[in-house]
Structures are given as C-alpha cells and as structure tokens.
C-alpha cells in the first residue's frame, strides 16, 4: 500500500513538474484571444447593424398598423384563417348563416335585399353625402353602451368610414367597402327596418326632421339595440343641422367625453366647439 501511494505521489509530482514548464506558445495564445475578442466585437456590431433597422421597420409598421386599425383586422383575419380564433358567430336574433368568404360576398345574392323593397336599400353611393357632413355616419355594428363586451370592442377605435352598420347576422367586419346595409338574412327584422327607415331619411332623402323622428323612434324601441350608438350619433347630427344647439350639445357630450371608447370622440368635440362659436 505504501509503495502504491509512493508511486502515485511520484506520478503526481512528475505531472506537476512537467506541466509547470513555461510554454513557448503563450504569446500566440494571447494573440488568438485578442483576435477572437476583436472578431466577436465586429460580429456583434454587424449583427446590430442588420437587426436594428429591421426592428425599427417592424416597430414602425406595427405602430402604423395599430394606429390605422389595420393591425387588429389583420390579426383577426389571420387568426381565423389559421384557426386559432373561432370564426365570427352570427348574432343571436338571426338564423345561423355560414359566414361568406370575402370573394363570394360580392357575387352572393342577398336574401334580405330581395325581400325588402328595392327602393329601400341604399345604393352604394349613398355614403357620399354622409362623408360631406361634419361628422359622417360611420357606424359600428355593435354599439350598445350597456354591454361591457361591446364597450371593449369600441375601445379599439372607430372603424373605416365605409363600413356599414346595417349588416345584421354575420359580422363581416373584414369587408368595410361593402356599401349595402342589406342583411344577409331572410328573416324580417323590425329593428333593422326602423334603422333603415331612419338611415334612408337621413342620408338618402336628407330630410333632417324626418330623420330625427326616425332616430328617436329607433332609440325608443331599441335603446340598447345593435345600432343604438350610430343612431344616437346620427340623432345628434340631426339636432346640429336643425340648430337645436343645447340638445345637440347634450347628445354629443357622451361621445366627446369618450364614454363610447373613443367612438366619434374627435368629431363630437369639434362639433361642440363649432356649436359654441
């Protein structure tokens, strides 16, 4: 055992001595270390030079998408296409109709359009006079201020001005250019009929007094209806046009204060300011 320990100790000593000798290659290793550090620095700078512009572009594009509201629509469509998000369900008071695809919507026949008198359906161009008004009738399909879920939706900001509110069953939010208020349904809808009547008087016939009465009727019967928010705003516009300033101010005040998640907030403020002059 003593012999074994001795040989181990001797071997350890031998290893210690042989490895303690000065290595001639240490200067070369130092140069390698410095070169590696320099290369690493250059690599990091190069990576940064590529990554920073890319990141800046991405951030700018995202900011633009969010501010213009296109990002939300894009992610929603993407989610639906990939299957992460469920397809938008039809509203409760409508029969379940499969959501038409974007391409199909233009050519697909609209059952409601055939049921409703042809003259009642506003043409595609009827939005033009709306745009001329100080606050065009941009409408959201789910306007109720009493439903928290809908309020949340409103906080995302108003949608495109070309978007129509009258679309009833399938919420085809991804097709803002569709000018027709006709629902994709065959069932009669008193709420929609009331809304159509007011809409026609307001935008098509431009009969402000009749429009005001129609909006009032709609809001009386459907204070929390699907189009109540748009109806309230259009009613306020009627009051402005009729010169009933105090009533108009009172009607615009909730919009101006941002109670509806920023919907028409800017326009309402501008109108109130104009009324006070």
């Amino acid at each position, binding site marked *: 055992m003593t*012999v*074994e*320990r001795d*040989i*181990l100790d*001797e*071997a*350890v000593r*031998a*290893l*210690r*001595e*042989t*490895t*303690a000798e*000065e*290595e001639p*290659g*240490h200067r*070369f*290793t*130092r140069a*390698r*270390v*410095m070169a*590696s*550090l*320099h290369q*690493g*620095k250059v690599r990091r700078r190069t990576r940064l030079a590529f990554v920073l512009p890319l990141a800046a572009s991405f951030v700018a594009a995202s900011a633009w998408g969010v501010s213009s509201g296109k990002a939300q629509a894009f992610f929603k469509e993407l989610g639906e296409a990939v299957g992460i998000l469920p397809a938008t369900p039809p509203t409760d008071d409508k029969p379940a109709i499969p959501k038409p695809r974007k391409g199909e919507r233009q050519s697909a026949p609209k059952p409601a359009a055939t049921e409703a008198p042809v003259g009642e359906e506003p043409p595609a161009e009827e939005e033009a006079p709306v745009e001329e008004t100080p606050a065009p009738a941009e409408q959201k399909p789910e306007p109720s201020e009493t439903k928290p879920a809908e309020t949340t939706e409103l906080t995302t900001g108003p949608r495109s001005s070309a978007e129509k509110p009258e679309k009833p069953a399938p919420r085809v939010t991804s097709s803002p250019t569709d000018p027709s208020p006709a629902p994709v349904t065959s069932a009669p809808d008193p709420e929609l009929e009331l809304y159509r009547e007011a809409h026609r008087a307001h935008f098509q016939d431009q009969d402000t007094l009749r429009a005001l009465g129609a909006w009032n009727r709609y809001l009386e019967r459907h204070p929390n209806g699907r189009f109540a928010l748009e109806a309230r705003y259009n009613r306020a516009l009627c009051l402005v046009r009729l010169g009933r300033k105090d009533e108009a101010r009172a009607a615009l005040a909730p919009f101006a204060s941002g109670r509806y998640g920023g919907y028409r907030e800017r326009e309402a403020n501008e109108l109130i300011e104009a009324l006070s002059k």
Partner: protein
Amino acid sequence: MDELLSLTRTTLDAAEDEIESLIARLERGDPLAVGEVYDLHHNAVRAFAKRLVGESAAAEDLVHEVFVTLPKAIRGYRGDSSLRTFLISIAVNHARHHVRAATRRRRAMEKLALEPERPSDDPERDARRRELARALTRALDELPLDQRVAFVLCEVEERTSREAGLIVGVPEATIRTRLFHAKKKLRAMLEQEGLR
C-alpha cells in the same frame, strides 16, 4: 509602526480599487482588460489546463476559451474568491469538450508512437518523470471528469478541498469523496501498468 500600517492599508485599498476597475472594464468587454488579466494569470490557467487535459495543444485551446469567454463570465463573479480562482472555475466549466478531444488524440498518438520527446540534461531522470506523468495522464483519461477535476485541483495543484469546492461549485465533502475514489482508481491503474 502606525505609519507602516497606514501605508499598507493605503496600498491594499489602491490594489482593491485597481481590481474593481479591472473587473468593471471586463464587464464592459474591454479587450485591453482581458489582455491585462491574461498577462497576470495565464501561467496559472495554462498549468491547470495542461494538468487537466494532459496535452499542450488542447490546454492552449482551453486557455483561449477561458479568456475569450471572460467578459461574459465575469458577470457571475461575486468577489468571494480571487480572480485567478475564478478563471480556473471557468476552465473547469469549459473543460469537458477539451478533455474528451485530448483523450482521443492521446490514444491515437500512443497507438502510432508519435509522442514528441524533448532533449534534456538528465535524460534518465527526465525519461522516468515523463513516463510517470504520461502514465498518470493515461490513468486520468479513464476517470469521470468530476473525479479528474477534483484530483487535479487537490493533488496536482495542491489546493484545499474547500477551494476546489468553490471552483467546481460543490460542497467540500463532495470534493473529498471524489478525490477518494479518484485516488483509489488511479492507484489501481498505475499498479496495473507495472509502475513501481
């Protein structure tokens, strides 16, 4: 006497400040700071690397890796050990690959009998020393890396088990256990080789 104490304290404070400044520069990735640390500690790191991997070329690679990774690794330095000890612990952390590569190369070299010999003033003594060192390195190749590291740190580098534990990051008792098993196996292997 008081003056001497005061002078010593001042000198120690200055040295501490210097080390702190050096570490701060290392953290910023200053290559010149790495160069300074290399000049101060490369011998110790190289000796340990050679003892651990058993080969000059692989040891140089390990030394290179230790100093290249130093600016990143220094973020984990808490100042509870000397910078040299910290460098050894970096070497331990990067040793696995180098030890494996060196062991493979050594086996191939031995098969082909290509071990380089250096000229010496006392050829007989040197031959015996080299033979023993080679035999121990071969035996170390057969050990698990943990036991190998413990043996090199405690027996070859003559560090305490506490210091070795700090370097490896394991309790002192673990180091002692590893050392015990390592020595037992090494003795058996040296005996098998017929060395007396």
